[in-house]
Structures are given as structure tokens and as C-alpha cells.
């Protein structure tokens, strides 16, 4: 049996914010949640997306930190910045491809999800994945995921030329092996790219469902 690992399945998320409410209960970051729950586009959908730290094998946040304030544990967990070292420059905030670290102005320090190190280092599950009602956040073994879930867990990401491998897995359809995101269009200063096709969102227009043959569903 392999070790327990973290899996995110966006198709399960119901946006209840249990993860957020539970995360802020932690006594190490009292009242501030380290998990981000994004509402993707409420005007068109109820889709939400939880974002914990993906715990990159080679953490970009640590690499770009000029103060060497971000440390990785031997078991691959990237910690919040060290208070005596953090200079609050927000390099990590800008560099993280997943948008995880946040600069907390009140304490002049970067804080981020640390895999509930106080819990996981003693064999407990992280708080968010324990309480998650939909188990969109799950902490279990890769064998158990293979046995109980459809789709494929991946942890390889391609952002332009940058390949990122992470400790945390995301569930994707069986056919997908890695997630590629071409950043060229987004960073171009030239003419803004034409609006992306709206088809996926329009699937969630109830008015369209009432008028046409159903196209909603998987």
C-alpha cells in the first residue's frame, strides 16, 4: 500500500465552502483560510473550484524567493514562509502557477496551504479533505482512488515551456495525461485574443435546455 496522497476532483465540487470554513479553524493561521474556493463564472454556471497548494516537487515559490524564506520538508511539503526571513515581496504570489500563496498584509508575511502538516505528519488527513462533503478533496491512497473513482489522477502540468510536477493529484478524464496551458495568448500585448467560445458555459443555460434537444451532461 502506498502512502496517503491528496486528490482534487473538480467534477465533484459543490461549492459549499466547508473546506474554507474548516481551514480557518486551524490554530496555526487562526481565522484565515489557506484554501481558495473559486466561483468560476456564477452568471453562467454553479461551478466552483477548490485550490489547495499543489506542493510542486520543485516548488516555484521557493525558487523565486529572494529571502530563502520558503522551505520544503523532506517529504515534499512546501511550508508557509518563515516569519524571520519573509520580506513580504510577493514574488512567490506572482510566480505560483496555481495562485496559492497570499501575502497577508496584517502580519506582513506570505502564508499558504501547508498540507495540514500538523495533521498529516502524524498520520491524520488534512482538515479540508476530511470534512469535504462531496469528497472533491480526498486524502487516500492511489490504489483506493483507482478502485473507487473514474478518470485518471494526474500531477504533471505544462505551462508554456515550464513542466511542473506536483505532489497533489487532480482527477481528469481517462484520455488526459497531462494538462497543458499555453500562456502565449494570455501574455501577448498585441490585439486581445477573440473571446473564447462560450459553448461549455452555454450548456448550463436553463433557457437553452428548455428549448432544444438536451446537450447538458457528460
Amino acid at each position, binding site marked *: 500500500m502506498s502512502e496517503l496522497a491528496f486528490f482534487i476532483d473538480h467534477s465533484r465540487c459543490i461549492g459549499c465552502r*466547508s473546506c474554507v470554513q474548516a481551514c480557518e479553524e486551524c490554530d496555526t493561521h487562526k481565522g484565515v483560510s489557506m484554501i481558495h474556493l473559486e466561483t468560476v463564472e456564477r452568471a453562467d454556471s454553479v461551478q466552483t473550484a477548490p485550490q489547495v497548494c499543489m506542493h510542486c516537487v520543485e516548488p516555484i515559490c521557493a525558487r523565486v524567493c529572494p529571502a530563502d524564506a520558503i522551505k520544503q520538508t523532506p517529504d515534499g511539503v512546501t511550508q508557509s514562509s518563515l516569519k524571520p526571513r519573509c520580506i513580504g515581496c510577493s514574488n512567490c504570489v506572482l510566480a505560483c502557477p496555481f495562485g496559492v500563496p497570499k501575502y497577508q498584509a496584517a502580519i506582513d508575511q506570505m502564508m499558504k496551504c501547508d498540507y495540514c502538516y500538523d495533521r498529516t505528519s502524524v498520520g491524520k488527513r488534512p*482538515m479540508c479533505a476530511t470534512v469535504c462533503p462531496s469528497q472533491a478533496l480526498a486524502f487516500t491512497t492511489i490504489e483506493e482512488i483507482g478502485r473507487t473513482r473514474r478518470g485518471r489522477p494526474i500531477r504533471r502540468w505544462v505551462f508554456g515551456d515550464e513542466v511542473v510536477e506536483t505532489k497533489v493529484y487532480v482527477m481528469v478524464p481517462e484520455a488526459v495525461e497531462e494538462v497543458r496551458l499555453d500562456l502565449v495568448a494570455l501574455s501577448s500585448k498585441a490585439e486581445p485574443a477573440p473571446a473564447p467560445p462560450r459553448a461549455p458555459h452555454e450548456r448550463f*443555460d436553463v*433557457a437553452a435546455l428548455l428549448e432544444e434537444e438536451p446537450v447538458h451532461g457528460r
Partner: protein
Amino acid sequence: MAKLPAPVPALVERFGPHAQRTPPGGWSARGAPDRLVKTHCCFCGQQCGIELAVKDERVVGFEPWEDFPFNQGKLCPKGVKRYMQDQHPDRLLSPLERVEGQGFRELGWDAALARTAGEIQRIQGKYGRDAFAVLTGASLTNEKAYLMGKFARVAVRTANIDYNGRLCMVSAGAASKKVFGVDRAANPWSDIPKAEAILVAGANVAECAPITTDYLWQARENGAKLIVLDPRLTPIARTVDLFIPVRPGGDIGVFNAMLHVMIERGWIDRRFLAEHTTGWEEVERTVRRYTPEEGGRIAGVPPSLIVKAAEIWGPARTSFLLHARGIEHHSKGVENCLAALNLVLATGRIGREGCGYAMITGQGNGQGAREQGQKCDQLPGARDVENPEHRRHVAGVWGVPEESIPHKGLSAVPLLEAIHDGRIKGLLLICFNPMVSLPDQRFIGEALEKLEHFTAIDFFLSETARYADVVLPGSLMEEDEGTTTNVEGRVIHHQRAVRPPAGAREDWRIICDLAARLGAGDKFAYDSPRAIFEELRAASRGGVADYSGITWEKIDRLKGVFWPCPAPDHPGTPRLYEGGRFGHPDGRAHLQPVEWRPAAEEPDEEYPIVLTTGRVVSQYLSGTQTRRIGGLVDQYPQPQCELHPRLAAKLGVASGDYVKVESRRGAVVVRALVTTTIRPDTVFVPYHWPLTRAANNLTVRAIDPVSNIPEFKICAVRLAKAAPPADELSRLAPEAGGVR
């Protein structure tokens, strides 16, 4: 005489709701707990296991209880934050009595109880026994629900006792009793992941029963096809196989037409129907005219969606139906459920592993609290108050003459109507907040103002308790011990984590003291909730909801016991109807033919839009508790009106604008949320807020003729863009009914 004793802002300033945002003493003061108490969430019918962290005899936090089988550590945001009630600054710590024009002043317990008992006797002496009413709630433990029923019948001797489950489970319960002879979910939740086809009808599972989501997703991982019926594309509907955006009140069109298609295609288990049911022929005859086109016309959806639903449901080998308030909160709520149950029985898929159905119980003890005799028509053990044999059994347990037990009284809405028209003059209320939760709020307020005497028992001063003459400070769930019965029919044990704060008392002690002052002390001489449970066991013996073989120790050992459990060595009954044996004396299920009929108030030219109401995940019922917890308030601070962009365009409204939603009965001004995830002919406003933010200002005071549930899910409204409200009430904090 019970107009508000002071202006609302003054009452809010002293009694809240105030949003508590930190644990007692602040985040830094918490430290390691002295102990963890394995108990259950106080909120919805899922009754999740949770460990409450106690330090210095205060509840300071929680830990997930991962070994409890139902939720295995999972909690919704309400469960996560529930602990913040315990040391809440709004807690009532002394009895209060109203002072006209000033609000409330503190009063000693002896004086408060004497005044309440005296008023009960005065009103009953002057106007008759039934002129004093008792209203209770389904968030009470089984012990307290039992006690309230007995208190009303034995100490007050009024017929008029009912409870807020009248707004919740009565349509489902009445349908289940008619068809199966038993009012309980037929299956444990562990059957859900084993079903090949799942139909979720009128249940916003993600927000109202979040823990059930994982059961649905497990089924999907196993290959199940999921169908959801809802006027809104809810979070679970987003990724299901078939979402049918049914018009509010159109569900029977879908159910009957699905059955029509299943008959045509031969997906009917005729052998099961012949051997285990009655009434099929008439059902078959009835649905003959419900073609997919006719069903689609009624339901306001393309017929192809109904055919697809039948194609998923019909040929499946195993299946599970789940329904909730979306189909039940109608003046035809019972009929909606009956039509849904026909789909279960026609396929013979019930009483087996992975085959069955459940109503998703809403309130914490929504199941148990309707079995212990606090409904106007029931005695303990889910017995019938009009059945002579049932009356004799209960009279024997209570040690009273059978003829002294009052007969059937008024249910909640007619009871408020009787207060309004002066037939009922006095009220004792516990665990119920009609000034948020009942339809047609203006009428309800008028009724409360007419009471000659009103005593409220509550731990916070609810919007309704503001009208009281006497307020008695009661206890939170974690301050007392007892049992509840969860959504599956599993009886579970709530442990006491701490004692009530000084000045407040356990609810059962308050009731027993009142009973003694009414001259019935010998019938209420309990020394503990356990003693009440022991009597409840005896009272339920031989009833449908038989708890007689359940002990608190057995619950702890087995992590819950499913009723019926008729003997000490009986293991309990997780799955009902095994072998096709149903609860009626003939052992058969009784199918009921159902014809669709319109709602009490359909849209017209003057009020052209359908309003449907419901809940959000971060609030619970009338919000008395959850509007006092900062994290939950901040998640969804104030009600929003969800409307489709097509309707919004006609009104010139954008997301974030204020809209005035108006019905024949009242209005609210709330912010708009423009989204494509709702039908263009329907708007949605959640109901957890009071005053000029109360969705129930709009709803219609129409009830189902059988269950007496109010029609919360459909009334006619009109909308217009509005200026940001700036009146005194709007300037209150959003948790108190203002806007942000």
C-alpha cells in the same frame, strides 16, 4: 397584547442577532482542548457525527469524527462552525418579561414559571382548554419531542399542539404512510452507491443535505446514471447525466409521463405489482393520458427529457429515488410524492440492496420528532391520536384515563389562523420561529399581536420570541443529553458536552417544572433525559416506530440503531420492506393514482413570475442559530433574488442591483443575482432572513389538504428594479435583516 415591546433596532442591539466571528476568548486563547466529546451536529437531518472540543467547560472547537459511519468525518460549513453558539454573547441568561415600550426586563425563574402557569390556567379557565396552544419543533431530541407531546396532552390538556415539522416532512410522511404504511426512509444511505439509476426530485442536495453528495458521487463512480429534477441548475445538477429543469409544481407531469413511457416500453415489474401491491390498474389507467408531450406541457420541459429519464430509470436493475421539499412544499405536496413513489413500485425495485427510496429529512430530528407524539394527529410510536387502541396504550403508559387525552388538534398554519381569529388566546412556543419560517409573514405577525399570553422557550431571542410576554432561556443541543433519529431512521445519541450557562436551564427541566405548576408533577417526575427515553421506549412499544429494544448503550455500541427495534436482542432495521412485505395490515404497498392540478396561486398578468423559495448551504432554517455565526453570515450575508438574464434584460436589472419582489401579500427588496442556472419564468429567494428581507412575506398561506404543509415552492410575484433601501430596518446588519 403582544405587539413588539420596543422598536426592532433596539431589540436587535440588546439581543442580536450578532455575528460571532471568533471562538470564545479569541483564536489565540484556544489552546489544546481538555476533552473531545463524540456527539452529533445540531443542525440538519443528516445528523453528522462530530467531536466537540471542550476547554475550561466551554465548547471551543471541533474535530471530525471519522469513525461515525454516516459521514465519516465529513461536515458542511454549518457543522464546522456550530460550536460558536455555545459562548455566544446573545445567549439568554435569565428569564425575561416584556415591558411595554421598553423591551424586556429580567425576571426570576420562579416568577417566570409561575406567571406562565398562571396564564395557562387563566386562559383555559376563561376560554376552554383548547384556547391555549403549544408549538414545538423538529430540532428537539426524541426525549424532548416526547415530553412536549405529553406535556400538551397531560399537563395542559390541549388538543392544539403541533410542530414546525409541519413545514418540513409531513407531505413525505403522509405519502409514505399511504403507500407503505410506514413513515420513514426505506433504506439506509449505504444503499445509494449500489444503485444503477438515481432520481433526485426537488432536492438541492449540495446545499440542504451536503453529506449526501458523496453518496451520489460514489454511485456515479460505480456507473450509475443520475437524474435531477429542479427549476434551478443546482450544484449537483451541474454534472449529472440528465437535468430536467421542471417548472415549479410540474413534477407530476414528469413522473406520470415517465411511467407512461415505461409501460409502453415494457419496463414494469408486473409480477411484483401483482404479488406485493394494490392499486396498479388505476395508476396505469391514470397515466395513459400522460404522454411525454402532455407531461412536458405540465412540467414546462421538452418531452424528450422525460423520455430520456424513463430510458434511464425504466430498464435499470437497481435504483434509488430521493425526494425533498422541492416536490413536498406544495398544496399538492402529498400527491407529488405519491406520483414519485409509483415509479419505485412499478419497477419492483424496493426492499433490496441498492433498491429503494428515501425522503431527505430536513430538520435535525425531522424523523424522530414526528414519531414521539408532538404532531397534532399523533401519539408516541407514530400512533394515531384518533385510534382507540392507540389511545389506550399511551394512556396506560402515561397513567391517565384514555378519555382525558385530547383528540386531534389544529396543525401549525390553521393554528396560527385560529390565533388570528381569536379562537386561541395563549401560546407556549419552543424550537420554532414562525416570524421567519411561516408563509404570509404579515398575517403571522398580526396573529402573534392578538395573543393574550405568549411564553417562548429559546436560547436566543428569535424574531418570534420578540413578541413574547415571558421568555424562558433554554439549552443548546450540546448542553443536554438525548437521542435523535437521522435521515435514515438511525437513532443516535447526542452527548452532553457542557452544562447550560448560569441562568439558562435544560428544556426538559423547564417543561417538567411547568407541568408541576399545572398540577401534573407526578406525571413528569423525571430525573434525567434517560428516564424520559425509558418511558418513550415503553410508549412506542408495538407502534410503527418501535424504539422499545433501543437503549443508549446499544446506540453507542452499534453507532446508531435503526427503528423498528422491538426487542432488546433485535439488531434494528436498516432496510424496510425486505421480501416485498410492506407496513399495511395486508402486507402490500398501496399505489395511488395521481392527477396533476395547478398550484393555489399560479402566475397571471398582474403577478407574472413564479417565486420559489429554499435554502443556502451556510444557513439553517429560520437562521436563529446560523445568523449568529460570523463565518456562516459572511458566506452568504443576505438573500439574493436569482433570475435568468432574459427576465433581467426585460426589467433592466443587472447582478448586484436591488429588486423589489412583490406578491399579493407583501414584498422584499433584495439584491439580484442574474444567472442562466434558473428557468426564465421563475425566480428564487432563500428564506432564512426576517423583516423586509423575509421571502415568506411573499409566500402564499395555502396548505396541502392532507399533510397541511404550506406551499412554499410556488406563488405569483412581480419584479421591478429598486433603489438601494435606506430605511431603518435596512440599516441593520444583514444577519438581523438589513442589507450590506
